[in-house]
């Protein structure tokens, strides 16, 4: 059997624009399919919860345009997953609209597009719970109950390769998928080519972040994968990069708790016996992954819920006495807030003082004992259900540092510098409520696929 070749230009489509040079060099090698993931939960819970996006639409369109024009010119499928950062129905619809728009702009000949939706309604999940189906907590979380779902505003299920592979078999030339395991986008065409799930998912795992698996470090550059059964060869396409056994193995452990197992709906990729070796100057080979099918398919659910409205203020401290006694100043400020607004927990507000210069980056995990820097930067973050109240609390939380009562303070005209006497409107605060598993009948059960003919010529004529 011939190798299947996959071109991947970016590890997060639209997050910053992809680099065209190495992508076009990859197109010259005539890949069999072009694949890119567009989502991540690294961006925090806000985009999912608020059904918003983290990437500018112009960059998303840019990347889709570069990929679509190449795919149609080469006559090969293009697969994009976790559309528009979160993979919600909004993201899929937005990317599908971009595809139609780009096709019309360039007068592209008709092609078949599949959209695969992965958003889940709260009601449907409540109904499953009522039927006795558990929603199992991951990573030490408790199982979901009605109350947790009630706190959740938006939910996506994470698909594996099966719904995508099925859409390709039904003739899709462009696939826009909702939330998907990154590796699944690559595995889908490989499974259809008859490769084992172990090889297919492992190839995807290695390729999903594009040039991150090469060295030296560069983002947004293309890589080419040449895949045969148990023989995955990855080549760097940027002339300044190479893919080496060390870079490939190093990437195999990136962003994951454990480099040995990758879980998808249908099973687990066991990578404990994987081997990495050099092929040529820019190419490394990996082999040895084994797929263990799940006895019970489990789909991962991601969900985010709103905690409240957020307001921010920025305060600086220069007085060494205040810096030394900043804990006392904050305790005083908090006590005054509780006097006015009621105890934080019962009254439904929270104030976080982020102390940059002490532990503003690492918080409770900062092991360095507090030093006394010559200045301290404080971001005051306030969250409350009610926006006006959040604003008022934030203003007082910041100004209380200005009026902090410390026994021996000399600067009696103000114990803090307000960068501006201003409360900044932050995006609402959200939290990841769901990081759970739902048992399903099969890997396609909770995903919905639609097919569309896209005719750029007709659209342009009209």
């Amino acid at each position: 059997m011939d190798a299947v070749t996959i071109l991947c230009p970016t590890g997060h489509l639209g997050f910053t624009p992809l680099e065209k040079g190495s992508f076009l060099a990859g197109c010259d090698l005539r890949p069999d399919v072009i694949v890119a993931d567009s989502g991540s939960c690294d961006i925090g819970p806000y985009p999912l919860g608020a059904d918003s996006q983290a990437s500018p639409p112009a960059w998303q369109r840019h990347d889709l345009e570069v990929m679509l024009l190449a795919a149609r010119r080469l006559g090969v499928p293009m697969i994009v997953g976790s559309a528009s950062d979160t993979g919600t129905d909004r993201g899929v619809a937005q990317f599908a609209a971009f595809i139609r728009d780009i096709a019309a702009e360039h007068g592209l000949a008709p092609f078949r597009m599949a959209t695969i939706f992965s958003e889940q309604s709260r009601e449907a999940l409540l109904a499953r719970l009522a039927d006795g189906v558990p929603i199992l907590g991951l990573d030490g979380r408790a199982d979901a109950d009605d109350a947790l779902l009630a706190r959740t505003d938006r939910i996506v299920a994470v698909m594996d390769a099966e719904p995508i592979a099925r859409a390709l078999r039904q003739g899709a030339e462009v696939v826009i998928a909702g939330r998907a395991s990154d590796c699944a986008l690559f595995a889908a065409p490989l499974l259809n080519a008859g490769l084992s799930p172990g090889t297919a998912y492992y190839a995807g795992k290695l390729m999903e972040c594009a040039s991150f698996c090469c060295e030296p470090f560069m983002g947004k550059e293309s890589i080419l994968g040449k895949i045969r059964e148990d023989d995955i060869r990855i080549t760097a396409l940027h002339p300044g990069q190479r893919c080496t056994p060390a870079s490939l193995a190093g990437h195999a452990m990136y962003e994951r708790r454990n480099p040995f197992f990758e879980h998808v709906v249908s099973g687990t990729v066991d990578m404990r016996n994987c081997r990495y070796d050099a092929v040529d100057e820019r190419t490394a080979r990996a082999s040895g992954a084994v797929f263990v099918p799940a006895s019970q398919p489990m789909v991962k659910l991601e969900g985010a819920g709103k905690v409240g409205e957020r307001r921010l203020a920025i305060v600086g401290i220069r007085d060494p006495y205040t810096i030394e006694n900043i804990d006392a100043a904050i305790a005083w400020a908090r006590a005054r807030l509780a006097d006015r607004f009621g105890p934080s927990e019962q009254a439904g507000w929270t104030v976080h003082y982020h102390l940059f210069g002490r532990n503003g980056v690492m918080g409770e995990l900062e092991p360095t004992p507090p030093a006394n820097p010559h200045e301290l930067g404080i971001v005051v973050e306030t969250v409350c259900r009610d926006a006006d109240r959040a604003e008022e609390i934030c203003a007082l939380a910041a100004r209380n540092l200005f009026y902090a009562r410390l026994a021996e303070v000399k600067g009696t005209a103000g114990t803090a510098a307000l960068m501006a006497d201003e409360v900044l409107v932050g995006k609402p605060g959200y939290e990841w409520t769901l990081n759970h598993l739902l048992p399903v009948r099969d890997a396609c059960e909770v995903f919905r696929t639609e097919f569309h003919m896209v005719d750029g010529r007709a659209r342009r004529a009209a």
Partner: protein
Amino acid sequence: MLKNRTTLRDLASTIRSKNAGVDHITFDIIFKDRAAFERVRDSGVVTPETVAALFNIPRERITDFVVFEPAKAIKFTLRRLRPSGSPGESDVFGSQHYPPLFEVEVP
């Protein structure tokens, strides 16, 4: 600075931290060569217990600890107290939690 004092910063080519899902931060220490990797691996200065002590957290919060031979790397993962990006959190990608590893001394 004492002479002859060797730290992870001297021996590693990459020391990084990053989210592993929404509830964990994972740390990768990738060594320049096999000798450096084996020196640290066999020294006992990077273990679940020592990294828990370094970050002042209970041992149970280190959920994974792996010596990853193919990458000449040691990898461990810790559980966040709150999911990434929750109000009050300060490193949404978990990408600036590695520096305390720099000064770990290696015999």
